[in-house]
Structure formats: structure tokens, C-alpha cells
């Protein structure tokens, strides 16, 4: 699953730790999502999209084979 988390974060000038604190996970989890090693749960994806005031589909996109 592709995501634009890094871009969205950069737009708001937010660090991984800032985002992690806001959604209640560790910085490592945010890093793993950005590097596409970990696919977040629906709940976490919604929390992240709410932080960036956008929809889940705008941040997370399915890839071929997903």
C-alpha cells in the first residue's frame, strides 16, 4: 500500500514524533508506515487522515496486488 504521509507531514511542517504523539503511537510506527513496512489499521488510518483534515483515500492508496 502506497501512502503520501511524508508529503502531508511536510506540508504541515510536522515531525514524525509530532504526528506519533497526536495519534498515540510510537515514532517507529510512523516511520514504518512511511517506509511502507507496516500497513496501519483502519482506526489509525482514520486518525491520521483526521490530523491532516483529508480522507483516508487521499493518503493511502492500494497498489497492484494489494
Amino acid at each position, binding site marked *: 500500500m502506497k501512502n503520501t504521509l511524508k508529503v502531508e507531514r511536510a506540508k504541515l511542517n510536522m515531525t514524525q514524533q509530532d504526528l506519533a504523539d497526536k495519534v498515540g*503511537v*510510537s515514532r517507529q*510506527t510512523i516511520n514504518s508506515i512511511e517506509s511502507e513496512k*507496516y500497513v496501519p489499521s483502519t*482506526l489509525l488510518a482514520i*486518525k491520521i487522515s483526521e490530523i491532516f483534515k483529508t480522507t483516508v483515500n487521499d493518503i493511502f492508496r492500494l497498489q497492484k496486488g494489494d
Partner: protein
Amino acid sequence: MESKTNNNKGKRIHKHFKKMGIGIIVLALLTGLIIKLSHIELMPTQKAFFKVFVMNGFILGLLFVALAKEKVEDEMIAQMRLKAMSQTFIWAVLYVIIRPFMDLVFRDPVQDLMGQELVLAMLFGYLLNYYSQKFSNK
């Protein structure tokens, strides 16, 4: 927004138990080493007692490390724990199957597998798997 899904926060002990667990492991190791290296003449009952003490100390220490909470116990950690647990279960089954054959090759005759030995192997397997996942995700 608090949800009970994906958090798996139950059945975890305080993070300080990790240090306590390591302390117990070191203590058990030191006891075992001192007894082994000092060549003290022990009676069979004393020998058995110290063996149980060292083994149980090791198991308890590893259990504390395995059950202790992380600084942030989130859904990725819960997923890693689950993956480590399921893989350890499979390895434990394979260990029980393969162990008698290893005995036949290296230590004839075949010895009974002790529960403590299996639990120790499972805890080691779980922690190795969990921490290798954790550090590869850093």
C-alpha cells in the same frame, strides 16, 4: 477516540519489570557459573536444587522481559508480538519433533524432553523473533 481493537493492552506488566527480569537472569547465570567454576562438592539433592533454581530464575527473568510493556505499546508492537508468538509456537512443535532425533545422533539414548527446557526454548525463540522484528523496523 479510544478503541479496544488493535491495542492488545491487556496482560502486560509495567516496563520496569524488563530491568528486573534482566537482573534475575544475570543472578541465575552468576549462580550457575559460580557453582560450576568453584568445583564445590554438592550432594545430589543440592545439585538438583541449584539446577531448578537456575533454570526457574532464567525462565522467570525471560518471562518478565517478554511480558513487560514497551514505552509506547501500540498496534504495530501488538502485531509484532502476535507474529513472534505464532512463529514460536510452530518452532516449539518442530523442536519437540526434531529433538529426539538429535539425541539419537549426538547423545544416544533419547532423553525425555523437560517442560522447563521447552518453555526456555519458547521464551528464547519468542524474544529473538520479537526483537529482530523490532530492530529491523527501526
